[in-house]
């Protein structure tokens, strides 16, 4: 016989705050990953990377397969990107999602420019971090986690 469980009245409040922190941690890490690739739009693959790279998020790995379709979509569109910017084919793989949307295409061009500039830099990070040691520090913190 299944026993009916009850919950303390404090749990909705506590879980609500916990979820808020969780959403912001996951979102911020995904944003850091997107920015690392010179993107200004967070994609499911950014979230998937965070889940794979963060130990405490391992319980979410079964959710990632739902996003594999997104990766294949990127693969399909990558051909279009390659036609436009052959020299940066690999670097632009994450910007494929911008195709077909004029505003996003503009972002893509900006990102393409950033990537070109970044390729000339000796720094390990892309141009978005040049001249800003605080962001580099944060990237170090990300790796230390």
């Amino acid at each position: 016989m299944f026993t009916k469980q009850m919950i303390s009245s404090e749990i909705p409040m506590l879980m609500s705050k916990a979820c808020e922190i969780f959403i912001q941690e996951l979102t911020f890490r995904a944003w850091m990953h997107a920015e690392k690739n010179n993107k200004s739009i967070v994609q499911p693959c950014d979230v998937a990377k965070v889940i794979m790279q963060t130990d405490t998020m391992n319980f979410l790995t079964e959710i990632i397969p739902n996003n594999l379709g997104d990766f294949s979509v990127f693969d399909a569109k990558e051909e279009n990107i390659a036609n436009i910017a052959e020299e940066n084919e690999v670097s632009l793989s994450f910007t494929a999602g911008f195709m077909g949307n004029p505003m996003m295409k503009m972002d893509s061009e900006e990102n393409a420019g950033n990537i070109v500039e970044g390729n000339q830099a000796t720094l390990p990070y892309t141009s978005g971090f040049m001249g800003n040691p605080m962001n580099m520090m944060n990237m170090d913190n990300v790796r230390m986690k």
Partner: protein
Amino acid sequence: MAGVREQDQYMPIANVIRIMRRILPAHAKISDDAKETIQECVSEYISFITAEANERCQREQRKTVTAEDVLWAMEKLGFDNYAHPLSLYLHRYRESEGEPASVRRASSAMGINNNMVHPPYINSHGFGMFDFDPSSQGFYRDDHNAASGSGGFVAPFDPYANIKRDAL
């Protein structure tokens, strides 16, 4: 699962999106698919934590899952950096709950509870993301958002981002 309505399967996405935007700089965008992914993740997170809390509660033959069970589950499942600030949050919640309801409402209206919810030292935890001193970082939110935000965590902002883009 019997009795679970479809609209109850996930956390409401509008609320999830609002929380997401609070942590990101204004120029950041979120694809619709990413919003849904995070929505699924936080819904799974709730099931993950509460299932563990419930398991301990049943093991000890109690019928009511307590906040302590939830905090214990977080520590066991690797979210110990959540459990500590949340126990502080819970402690202050209980303190304010002891006040008469009218006083609590008045305090909430004046924003006093918001101040209590975010004592300065919580920033030192970084909620598992980054240990840094906010005063040494650029802020990217106004006081109102800071007051209503969770944990007082502030996302780093690249003040040169626009300059770089304009120069291209």
